[in-house]
């Protein structure tokens, strides 16, 4: 493939004496093959054009998680990103540090906020009464793809909720929490679910799926969050502000976390029950935006009741599972 000249528009950042960050954009031109990685280009620039350019890197093979940075609008691993994929029509590639973490210099950020959140979920197996001593072939169905996480922080950098709340633990921490909740050897699964049901944990994810899209290791953090919520509700943790919302969205569900068949029918026929606060309801009413409490009944509604009953009598396991990683 032919070489092409690309423009790397790099954000240069410097922390000044009073702790403020001074930013400016600097352009570097570099000829590269379309499949050259952004990291190799940065190495070329640092080696031959400007030794002051600062970023983190180590493994060059998407293993260590050091080289995460914003590249053309998204957080990506520089060592796993081909230049052509991220260049715009004029061959420009924008490079800046990860967001939601304080900048130290150029592309280097202080990763403590990210790591401290991960530490909060106790990222290790704990002894306790729920340890399963039977570890079978399917025991790691849920654990496997979450363990691919390399703690690069990309998902946290792109997380919509982290952008507006530094208290939210974030996608990687929750994916890791799920890894321990589903590990047969973990002894405190229920206690974990209780803690995860508290504020700023699993219920604060706004389900934008950005982390699923961003993660370079296909961890799919939001999918893990959805599964955590399901497990939390099954254990009866339905009192926090988060689950209350999930329930308010559709109507009332019994406190046990079990669905009440009558209200479930209503949910399924559908009421957008998001009008939580009275003030907001009045504001919406001005424009006639209050849903009818008696929505139109759909035809064949008894079929839904049948489906529900059949599934309650014979539950189906239809969760997505990680592919088995068998030795060759």
């Amino acid at each position, binding site marked *: 493939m032919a070489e092409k000249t690309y423009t790397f528009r790099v954000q240069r950042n410097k922390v000044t004496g009073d702790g403020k960050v001074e930013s400016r954009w600097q352009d570097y031109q570099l000829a590269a093959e379309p499949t050259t990685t952004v990291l190799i280009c940065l190495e070329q620039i640092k080696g031959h054009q400007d030794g002051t350019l600062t970023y983190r890197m180590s493994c060059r093979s998407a293993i260590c998680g050091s080289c995460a940075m914003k590249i053309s609008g998204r957080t990506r691993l520089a060592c796993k990103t081909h230049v052509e994929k991220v260049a715009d029509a004029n061959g420009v590639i924008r490079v800046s540090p990860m967001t939601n973490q304080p900048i130290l210099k150029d592309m280097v950020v202080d990763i403590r906020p990210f790591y401290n959140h991960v530490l909060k979920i106790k990222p290790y197996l704990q002894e306790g009464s729920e340890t399963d001593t039977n570890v079978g072939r399917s025991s790691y169905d849920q654990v496997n793809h979450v363990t691919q996480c390399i703690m690069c922080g990309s998902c946290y950098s792109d997380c*919509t*909720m982290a*952008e*507006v709340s530094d208290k*939210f633990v974030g996608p990687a921490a929750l994916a890791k929490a799920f890894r321990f909740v589903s590990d047969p050897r973990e002894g405190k699964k229920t206690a974990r679910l209780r803690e995860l049901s508290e504020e700023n944990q699993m*219920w*604060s994810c*706004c*389900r*934008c*799926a*950005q982390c*699923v*899209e961003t993660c370079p290791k296909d961890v*799919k953090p939001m999918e893990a969050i*959805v599964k955590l*919520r*399901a497990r939390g509700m099954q254990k009866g943790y339905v009192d*926090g*502000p*988060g689950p209350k*919302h*999930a329930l308010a*969205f*559709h109507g009332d*569900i019994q406190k046990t976390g079990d*669905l009440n068949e009558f209200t*479930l029918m209503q*949910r*399924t*026929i*559908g*009421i*957008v029950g*998001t009008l*939580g*606060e009275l003030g*907001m309801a009045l*504001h*919406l009413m*001005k*424009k*006639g*935006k209050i*849903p*009818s409490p008696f929505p*139109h009944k*759909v035809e*064949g509604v008894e*079929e*839904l009741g*049948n*489906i529900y009953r*059949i*599934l309650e009598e014979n539950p*189906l*396991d*239809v*969760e*997505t599972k990680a592919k088995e990683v068998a030795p060759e």
Partner: protein
Amino acid sequence: MSLEFSFYPGCAGKQVQKEAKSAAHAVARELGITLHPMPRASCCGAVSLRESKLAFSLAVAARILSEAEAAGRNICTICNTCLQTLSHANYRFKREPDVLEKINGVLKKAGVRPYGATIKVQHLLWVVTDQVDQKLLKSKITRPLKGLKVAPFYGCHNLRPSEIYESKAGDEADHLDRLITTLGGSPVSYSGSRKCCGFHVMLSDPTEMRSMVAKNCLDAKGEGAELMISPCTLCDMSLNAYQMPAEKVVGKKIDLPEMNFAQLLGASMGLDAAELGLERLHVDPRPVLKSKGV
């Protein structure tokens, strides 16, 4: 050429955001798109039902998909969250035959036609920008936007996870940008364009939700936007009906009119403002439209 779909407007389109639904019907009529009602279709349950009862949520989706399949049509929706919920289920049914078989077993027992996993789930925006003859579309634009700066807000459930959608998705999606250009407007590029409006944390994290609304709107305004459009009844609700509450949280005036893409499309076709429900919007787009003769 007539484009036939089974229409799944979603509960918000049927109730709180019914202006989006009537605007959808109005533009469909003009563009030769037939939106057939789905009398049996229930609510799809969104992600909430997936969290509380996974198998049930898949069966509910299969029942909806099956109704359209029986009529020999693809589904067309105007709610991003419905689009995501039905696409997600459909994606699994097409790739995991064992899951489809299990769910169909339940449907059969419950007296429901099993789903053959043959149809597609589409958004009206995709139909308008990819399937409608663009010459026909252009010929209908009697009141072009004359360079009006319009911010496209895609909404996360229109885009991600990109693998599940049967059209361009994720960072590749460009439907709204293309539509704005076709209407004679100029699409604004701003950082919130593919972010989330916070709808699903409206009650659990109300301040954060309002900050998201404010951030998206202020970003767009900062890049010169005079109007914002979205393809989703729920995004509309957040970005428009919640804009004033969001102003209170950030202590800044926003004042950016936001409307459903079908409403703007209808307005530039010169359709009746009442049919488009423009008076139902909290932040009124009519003054800025009027300034361009729309």
